[in-house]
Every structure is written in C-alpha cells, then in structure tokens.
C-alpha cells in the first residue's frame, strides 16, 4: 500500500510542476528553467530547515517568494526573448543553477547534497508517514490547480494565449507583452517551488543531480503529452509519465538500465508526439 502512496505523492509533485510548466509554455515560452526553480524550492527547504530550523510548512511560504524574486530578476532580461532564444536563455540559467548547486559546498553540500531534511509538522502532528504526506501533497496540488484554472480563465490567461499566437500583433492592441511574460514566468517559478519543497522533505535528501536538464525535458514531455495550454492536460501528462515508467520496475530490468530506458521513453515520446499528435492528448494548441 505504501508503494501506492509513494506513486500518489510523486504524481502530486510532478502534477504541480507540470501545471507550472504549462502556465509558462501556454504563453509560448519554451522554458528550460523548470528544473532550476524546482531545485531552488528544494534547496530553500533543505537549507532553511537544516541550518535555521524552519518548519517545512513555513518554507512553503518563503520558497515561492525567493524563487519569484529570482525569476523576476533573470526574467526581466529573458522576457525580451522569444521562441528558441528564450529556450536557450533559460537553459543557460538552469546550467548556472546546477553549477552553483554542485560547487557551492558550504551552502548546498556540493555533490554530497543535503541529507536529513525533516518532514513538515503542524502543532504536534508530523506528516511523517507516506499516507499523511500524500494528503499534504494532494492539498497543495489542489491549491495549485485552483490557481492555474483561475489564471487560465482570467483576461490575463487570454492574453497569454494571444502572446503564444502572435506576440507582435497583440502589442498593436496595447499590450506590453514582455510584462505579461515576466509575470507568468515568475508565477510559474513560484509554483514550482511548492513541488521542490515537498520533494526535498519527502525524500529527506537532495543533491544537484536531481535538478538537471533531464528534469526539464521530463516536464516538457508531460505538458506536450497532456496538451499544451490545458491544465487537465498537464495533470494527465504528469500522471501518465509517472505511472508508465514505474511499470518498468515490474518487467525486471536492472535498475541502471531501467533509468536509461525511462529517459529514452521520454525522448521517443516527444519525437512521436511532434510527428503524430503535436497538440497532445487533451490539447487544443500547437506550439
């Protein structure tokens, strides 16, 4: 039964990440920075909990603010870019984050990472069991889902769609599109940290290898599989891409081979989707 709870927690964490990625990609922003903000959330949780004794639930308030400020800072430059330039700029940001996380040993533990990250607690209750942690994850996923639906259905959400369609044409109608792009980039970053904080606390250990470009590609695959610009698509993508690779465990492949095969599945899936179903399973939009 604990294995089911484990899968449910992973689906919730990646569901949050996919929803955040979908907000950004729904505006046509091909961001590779998803893993970086996920990592910033995780390291914020690890550092504040281990070095300063913060409760993980308190960190859920601070981490989005920290990531939001970082996203606004770097995003003020990135928001001038579009398409492949935006992708390359965010990829550069991810590489810088990863290099810092790997080498700043005093803060991040370097390649040894940070171990012993505590579980969240409220009053005298600790979310120490997979069952209780699952409900905390579900709750955060629900909050994030509500936020994402709210944004999608607002006038702001409609503008994001129009930016994806034709940013220059939209600007003629009085929209400063770079501000919209910057804001959604920061919101996406802030939301991703919820997943990072949950992940660090759930695993109790993090290191820089957990937040590489592979993780960003996985988020892309989830959003594209489910359908870009659809919140339910992002959730479906996260569900499928967590559950399907878990099936490899039961086939009996060696662990190392299963991990490689998982990456290959994500890569192949992206190629096939681009060829045969560019709108994804539930999507309405092509990139």
């Amino acid at each position: 039964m604990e294995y089911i709870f484990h899968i449910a927690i992973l689906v919730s964490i990646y569901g949050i990440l996919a929803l955040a990625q979908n907000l950004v990609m729904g505006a046509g922003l091909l961001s590779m920075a998803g893993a970086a903000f996920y990592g910033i959330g995780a390291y914020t949780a690890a550092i504040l909990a281990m070095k300063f004794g913060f409760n993980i639930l308190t960190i859920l308030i601070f981490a989005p603010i920290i990531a939001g400020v970082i996203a606004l800072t770097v995003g003020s430059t990135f928001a001038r870019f579009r398409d492949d330039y935006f992708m390359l700029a965010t990829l550069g940001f991810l590489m810088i984050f990863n290099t810092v996380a790997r080498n700043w040993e005093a803060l991040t533990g370097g390649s040894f990472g940070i171990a012993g990250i505590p579980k969240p607690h409220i009053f005298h209750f600790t979310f120490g069991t997979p069952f209780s942690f699952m409900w905390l994850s579900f709750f955060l996923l629900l909050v994030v889902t509500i936020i994402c639906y709210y944004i999608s259905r607002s006038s702001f959400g409609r503008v994001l769609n129009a930016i994806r369609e034709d940013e220059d044409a939209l600007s003629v109608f009085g929209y400063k599109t770079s501000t919209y792009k910057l804001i959604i980039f920061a919101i996406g970053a802030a939301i991703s940290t919820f997943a990072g904080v949950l992940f660090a606390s759930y695993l109790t250990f993090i290191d820089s290898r957990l937040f590489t470009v592979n993780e960003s590609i996985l988020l892309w695959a989830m959003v594209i599989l489910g359908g870009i610009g659809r919140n339910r698509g992002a959730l479906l993508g996260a569900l499928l891409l967590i559950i399907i690779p878990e099936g490899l465990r039961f086939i009996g492949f060696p662990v190392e081979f299963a991990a490689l095969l998982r990456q290959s599945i994500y890569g192949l899936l992206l190629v096939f989707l681009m060829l045969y179903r560019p709108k994804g399973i539930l999507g309405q939009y092509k990139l």
Partner: protein
Amino acid sequence: MKYIIETKNLVKNFGGVHAVDHLSINIPKGALIGLVGPNGSGKTTLINLLSGFFPHDKGAIFFSDSERRKILSWENKFYNITRTFQQIRLFDQMSVLDNILVVLTERNPFRALFERHTEYHIKQAEDILRRVDLYDKQFHNAGNLSYGQRKLLEIGRVLAMDTDIILLDEPFAGLFPEVIKKIEEIIKDLRTKGTSIVLVEHNMSIIRSLCDYLIVMDAGRLLAEGHPEKVLREPEVLEAYLGE
C-alpha cells in the same frame, strides 16, 4: 490641431535599401487618406513606422502636434491608434470571440489577473461580430475561417479598439465583391464618426470612391499628393504607378 499625424523627413533604411526616404506627409484629423504606390514603394513600411513595428532611423513623427521620438506598439492604445496587417495576423488557435475579447479587456497585467470577461464585454464583442457578419462563427477557431472572414475579423478587432486613428493595410486585397462592399460600409461608418483613416490600397476605384486625399509613394519618397482625381491624372504618377 490641424493634423493628427505628421511626418517630417522620415527615413527608414533596411541595409542599403531606402524603404522610406525623407518622407514628409500630413494626415488631417478626420480625413480618409489613400496611400498608394507600386510594390516596394514603402507604404507598408510607413504603416509599420507609424504603428511602432519598426523604429525610424531619422526624421520626426508627430501625433496630434506632439512628437513621438520612440514609437512603441504597445503604447498605441494610449495614443488612440490601431492598424490591420497586409498579411492577416489573427490569433489563429483562439476562437473568433476571444480574438475580439482580447482587444476589449484589461491591458494592465495585474488588473487582468483579477478580471474575467463580463456580460458587458460579451455584448460588445457580439455587437462587433454582428457588424462584420461573424456572429455565427464566434465559437470557431479563427484559423478555420475563410480568407474573407479572416479579413473581416481583422476589421472587427479594429472596431473593438475604437481608436481615433486607423491604419488599414490593403484591407480589400483578394476579396469577393460582397465582402468589399461590407468593408466599404464599415469604413464609411467610421468616417461619419470622425475617425482618421489611412488606407493602403491598389484598387483605384475604391480609392476614388472612399478617399478625400491621396498620397502616392515611389521608392520610399513622396511622389504626389492631393485630391484623388487630380493626382491620378498626373503624368509622373501614371508612369510610376500605372506604368503608362
């Protein structure tokens, strides 16, 4: 204020090509100005400069007597100006209704986050879609419309902007007579409301029937200007534009 738009010695170069070459023109308030010239004469470049799509290299542009040193397209709403495109640029994967609503709703991103379109917005959008004969298509994707319907939707977005100055870049190109008639009606209606319109067009009968004043460009320069009937008889215009 006599002129709603003035350009003085306006210059725009693309590499070695002088797309707009020391152009000085005046657009009177409330007038419907025809802008004609052979292909590559700089008409669309001029529209792009006036709407902030490209920055100008030299010269000056005045809107309502005040110079705009740097024209930014997102400030067009503030300066009461809008445009259509020679190559239609709709939000293809959005519905016809959303193409109009996005023009009607909040520009400030923080207010837009907390705004949902209201019955008021829907009613306005539906009124506009009725005017451009697209009411029945409001839930279709803009990308699925026919060419003529796409042109009409562009006109619909211009109506939704409700600005004092409209720059129309070949709105009649490639259209059936019924659609041409519809767009002519809309333009005449806008004129009665005092809207200033710059119309880039190759069809001289449309120019003659709609425009008060004609500006002819050739190789980025002003070739002739004046009343359409008079200008279209000038020998240099006939030679440059009509090849006669």
